[in-house]
């Protein structure tokens, strides 16, 4: 991963330079016009968040049952990214909603459940920070439940009648407007690669902190 890190930084930086240019060049959507352009990063951030949730869930399971340190580092790193991407997803959604729905905030099933999901992972981070010794295991359980909640958030728009677009949007976009569909995929790929990059850097930080703790213990002995 060390060898791949720098090339990955270059690729991700190039993608994030290209993405806004491509979004600016893209056609306007027929009913929402300009404000629909928020969609490209809005959707991509939820994709990145989904990857981070999956990593956190799997790493938490491994940590609970095997006690592996690396999986614990992965879990805490990904939980942090869930909160970062979740906050951006909610914020960009709110700005889009202001124009499309006429309100900054709407208590519909998808928006409310997504907020709850971000709060679960915020809780995870607070338990890690203030929980004291042994909080890693408690947090791991929270990570698993957070990950288990995410499919419900995804399907909420199909199960309940809400004003949020349904999951079929991406399927129909591919048929009706392939250019926009490709652009969404490009942005999603950029966000997922950014997640990999941030996750790697964040795991390295956790490894350094662990080494620091060991050094303190060695000095006391």
């Amino acid at each position, binding site marked *: 991963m060390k060898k791949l890190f720098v090339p990955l930084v270059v690729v991700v930086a190039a993608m994030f330079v290209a993405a*806004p240019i491509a979004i600016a060049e893209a056609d306007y959507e027929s009913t929402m*016009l*300009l*404000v629909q*352009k*928020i969609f490209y*990063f*809005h959707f991509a*951030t939820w994709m990145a968040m989904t990857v981070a949730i999956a990593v956190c869930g799997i790493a938490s399971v491994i940590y609970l049952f095997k006690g592996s340190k690396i999986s614990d580092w992965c879990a805490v790193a990904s939980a942090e990214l869930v909160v*970062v991407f979740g*906050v*951006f997803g909610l*914020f*960009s959604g709110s*700005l*889009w909603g*202001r*124009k499309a729905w*006429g309100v900054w905030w709407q208590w519909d099933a998808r928006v409310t459940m997504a907020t709850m999901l971000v709060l679960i992972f915020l809780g995870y981070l607070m338990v890690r920070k203030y929980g004291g010794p042994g909080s890693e295991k408690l947090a791991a359980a929270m990570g698993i439940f957070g990950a288990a909640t995410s499919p419900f958030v995804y399907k909420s728009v199909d199960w309940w009648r809400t004003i949020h677009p349904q999951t079929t949007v991406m399927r129909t976009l591919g048929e009706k407007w392939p250019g926009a569909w490709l652009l969404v995929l490009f942005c999603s790929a950029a966000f997922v690669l950014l997640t990999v990059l*941030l996750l790697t*850097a*964040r795991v390295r*930080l956790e490894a*350094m*902190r662990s*080494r*620091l703790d060991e*050094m*303190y213990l*060695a*000095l006391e002995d």
Partner: protein
Amino acid sequence: MLATVFFALQQQIPEGFSPVTGVPVTEQIPAAPLVIASYAFFLLLMVFYLWTKWRRIGKVETEMRALERRQAEKR
């Protein structure tokens, strides 16, 4: 004179609410600031996140160097 102006103004004020067809452009919510705010917020969020990580890595490295010095002195 003043009474004439007051009377004219009173006549211009419509009674109750009346609908308008075709919302004037000045009354519509502009999309551009919302789109710009969305992308700018993402940029700021990423810069802030990376800055906090950078700072934390710096702190840990400083602490590690200090501990290594203390360990060397102890030997």
